[in-house]
């Protein structure tokens, strides 16, 4: 059994939540807001 290990360093992109306005740096796929847990976010 082989399991792929992601090798990238933590970088992330800036996002803003469209529901609560929170700004945050998200890493990985499918970022969600750390304040309200909404996935209605967009790159800032």
């Amino acid at each position: 059994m082989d399991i792929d290990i992601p090798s990238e360093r933590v970088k992330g992109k800036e996002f803003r939540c469209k529901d609560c306005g929170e700004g945050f740096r998200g890493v990985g796929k499918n970022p969600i807001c750390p304040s309200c847990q909404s996935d209605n976010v967009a790159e800032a």
Partner: protein
Amino acid sequence: MIPVLPDEFLHISKGSSFLIIAQANIRFALCIETSSEEFCQTIEPHDLIAVSAPEGGEPEAAAMLIELVRRHHTPLIVLPGNHPGSRRLRYVVSAGPVIMTSCSIHRGTHPEQHLICASEALSGVTMQGVQGGVLIDNLPSGAGLRRFRVHTSVEFIQN
């Protein structure tokens, strides 16, 4: 695949060192705090929360750390490299879809969640969360695998 129910923890041990892993069960944003930045990583229900105790310790304490992360969404604090407090950390936590143990990193000082510090005896183990359980690769010969549950409740005392 090793089946792990939502209320179960998987205990992997060799010698005195151990790893405890559990599935996140819910989707949430886990915040990772370094000395200068905050990163927020989406944790999916099948992702893993792992705790490593390279010199051993109490499985109950490790399970509490997992619950702090997955139930209470406690942020993970990352120490700067070569921070003197690194050697005080008896338990370290990582969370994500795939986590690999390594004995060649300084505990508590790396924000990358696909790595977790472990003893040499448990180094190189790869764990992946999947529907209903965990895939484990490179389990060392002689390592023990057990599942357990923790029952916690608060009972307020009447004055």
